[in-house]
């Protein structure tokens, strides 16, 4: 059985169905991407997996346990961390306070401090400015902090929603390199991206979500080569 299995997920905001049949699975140690255009239902899917939204129907199973009826703070406790779209840092708090909130459910002070140091090794700019307020940082630095904050709970599954949004190409590369590095350290990553090219190049497996449904799936390489994906999400330049 897969590490995370999402089956026939339907999620609605009031009368409007944002997700109408999403099915995918994530194997342990993989990087899996959900790609698709704006408004396809990718973010809603992540928010449902992490417990911020309740599905109308369908199943979410983590490591054999159904989690779709659990509140968000319980799901975090089961090893799922979600770095939300737009980064959503606590802007009026310092870098350290943001990271400490990421470790909110832990009480091993030594472990928290060593994990914080690990994140400062990974992103030295955060270490240099650990007492500065997060709201003053650039987009790229905020994204580093958002990933760092999510890592502080020592997740088994890290979900990143549009980590490249608004970032320069160089910063985007750095963020994706970080994802690769985390995978090599054993973290499973579920990525939602509009930047399909970079996401697919990195992914072991990927799913296309269109109008609230999973329409295509395959390895990252297969989808990169798929003419339907090229036409819809990668632009003509890549197809030629």
């Amino acid at each position: 059985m897969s590490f995370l299995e999402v089956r026939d997920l339907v999620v609605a905001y009031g009368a409007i169905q944002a997700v109408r049949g999403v099915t995918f699975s994530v194997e342990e140690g993989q990087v899996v991407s959900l790609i698709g255009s704006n408004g396809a239902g990718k973010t809603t899917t992540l928010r449902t997996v992490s417990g911020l939204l309740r599905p109308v129907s369908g199943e979410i199973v983590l490591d054999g346990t159904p989690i779709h009826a659990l509140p968000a703070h319980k799901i975090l406790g089961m090893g799922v961390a979600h770095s939300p779209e737009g980064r959503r840092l606590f802007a009026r708090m310092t870098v350290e306070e943001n990271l400490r909130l990421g470790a909110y459910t832990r009480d091993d002070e030594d472990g928290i401090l060593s994990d914080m140091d690990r994140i400062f090794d990974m992103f030295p700019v955060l270490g240099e400015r650990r007492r500065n307020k997060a709201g003053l940082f650039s987009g790229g630095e905020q994204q580093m902090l958002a990933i760092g904050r999510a890592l502080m709970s020592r997740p088994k599954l890290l979900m990143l929603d549009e980590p490249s949004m608004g970032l320069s190409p160089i910063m985007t590369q750095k963020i994706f390199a970080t994802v690769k590095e985390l995978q090599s350290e054993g973290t499973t990553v579920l990525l939602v991206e509009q930047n399909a090219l970079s996401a697919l190049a990195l992914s072991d497996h990927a799913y296309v979500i269109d109008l609230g449904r999973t329409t295509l799936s395959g390895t990252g390489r297969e989808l990169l080569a798929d003419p339907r994906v090229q036409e819809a999400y990668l632009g003509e330049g890549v197809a030629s």
Partner: protein
Amino acid sequence: MLSTLLSQIVNGLVLGSLIGLIALGYTMVYGIVQLINFAHGEIFMVGAYGGLAMFTYLLPTALKNHWYFALPILLIVGAAVSVLVAVAMERLAYRPLRGAPRLAPLITALGVSVALQEAVRVFYPNATAAVPFPTIFVPGTLIIPIGDGIPIKYSAILLVVVALALAYALNTFVERSRMGRAMRATAQDPDVARLMGVDPDRVIVLTFVLGGALAGVGGILYGGLYNTINIDMGFQNGIFAFTAAVLGGIGNIRGAVVGGLAIGLVKALGGQYLPGGTAYDYVWIFVVLIVVLVFRPQGFFGETERVRA
């Protein structure tokens, strides 16, 4: 002349400390659940009645005359009664309305306010009129020898010291502790706080517990200062405290204290020096509120609304 001015400043700071203590409850609850808890004034009132009931009916007579026994017991019991009522109120009245349009809990708060006042009026012996409150602190007055002398009651000194100490302790708790961080996170972005593993119910209950405890202590100190309590005390001081919270910047702890002191001073000095005297002190308080909000709608310390990236 000088001693009148200084006396009124003292009066203003004493009343202001009390208002600030109550305002902390308004501002914290608003910061976490965006509700103006209009019943918070009654939480202050039931603390005073709860403490008085314990003192009158349960405390052995031998202890009643020793303020260093009676006072701590009164403060603890007053805080405990207020906390119990505040937690019950959140559980029974507000929690079922989580997610309802904001008007629903607001109207419920007004209803809870009336219900608590009436409950005390009906069930507390002789509560239809003002009830005498024991002089729990060393009765007496300190005279500061300036001009004709500035009188300060010891119970007023106690009120100011305890109120400011509690406000400082609360601020330290919110700024430094793990639960305080969870409260600030919930106030800034409740969804993301949940993603960090924060249980919103725990934070909300904690907020009502802290606000209730401060209000209960305030109720006892109020009784000790004025030596009489009545069922309207929560409504009157609650309005002042709510105004103080808005003036200081609702959701901001320092703002609540500064707003409380500002309102205390306006009430005391306006009542002394402005036309109309004490009959018009409400007018001056709300004039100040309106003028401040015209030029600084977020209050003294409030954050301006920022668009999230």
